């Protein structure tokens, strides 16, 4: 039994491969700066792997963009300046929460229009049926 166990352990040892986990280390002077970095990298989308944010993506482009966010925070730039930098190069697409603009204004107001249309139809239907019931 112990021989078999030894053999099995040896086989497992021979066929095991080294595994390294890497983590990004960004050093900040204050926890507030670190918090801003976390928020920004969560709000910015990775242009390469488009369903992930910068924080969750390990693509080379994401790593580069994260480093730019880090450098800009350290350099004292505001969140808006950093978002503007990204938008200027990758467009509105890079923001997970798009801002209202001429191109997407319909998406912002459409739900209100639909509710309004529904209310108008409902009220007309309600008034008609009330009149019929009263008759």
């Amino acid at each position, binding site marked *: 039994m112990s021989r078999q166990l030894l053999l099995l352990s040896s086989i497992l040892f021979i066929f095991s491969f080294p595994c390294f986990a890497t983590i990004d280390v960004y050093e900040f002077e204050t926890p507030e700066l670190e918090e801003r970095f976390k928020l920004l990298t969560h709000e910015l989308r990775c242009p*390469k792997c*488009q369903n992930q944010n910068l924080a969750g993506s390990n693509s*080379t482009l994401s790593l*580069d963009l994260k480093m730019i966010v880090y450098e800009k925070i350290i350099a004292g730039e505001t969140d808006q300046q950093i978002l503007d930098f990204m938008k200027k*190069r*990758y467009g509105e697409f890079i923001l997970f929460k798009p801002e209202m603009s001429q191109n997407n204004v319909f998406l912002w107001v459409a739900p209100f229009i639909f509710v309004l249309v529904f209310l108008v139809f409902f009220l007309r239907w309600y008034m008609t049926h009330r009149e019929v019931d009263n008759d």
Partner: protein
Amino acid sequence: MSENSSKTIIVRTFVLSTFVLAFIWFYWLIGQDKTELPSELIDSPAPKFEVADLLIDGVTHTQEEFKGKITLVNIWASWCPSCYVEHPFWKEYSKNDDIVLVGLNYRDEKSKALKFIREQGNYYDWTLFDQNGRLGIEFGVYGAPETFLIDPKGMIRYRHVGVVDHKVYQEIFLPLIEKIKRGL
């Protein structure tokens, strides 16, 4: 036919046509390639830079060199499989004298980039060496290959994501180049 039944027919037709239109719109939407991003830099000046030449030590280039000529900037890298597919096309293209072809070697190791040029051929008028990818980010690049068309005023007129081949060049680039030549 009573007024009520004709009203019902109108409402039913309206609801049905709304559903049909929504279905067609949805079908059209899923057929779109939403992974391709439009460039934010179209009709904007090319980004400012001062970057080293890949092949000639001590030489640097700036965006000022784009002025006065029609330029194509081709983003490539030795780690990019599609670039090996695309590269032979530039051999055919390099016979074209009235347009400058600039290579932008994106996020590469110099030795590997030089090996690529040695083995695949150098068809570029000059090549920028963007080792850390920062110039690529200035151009809004999100992969390789990508190709930018820049007019003689130094304005970016078009960005193509993916391989440029004879068909893409004839159908997309050539009409735009003709338009630029006509001063439009």
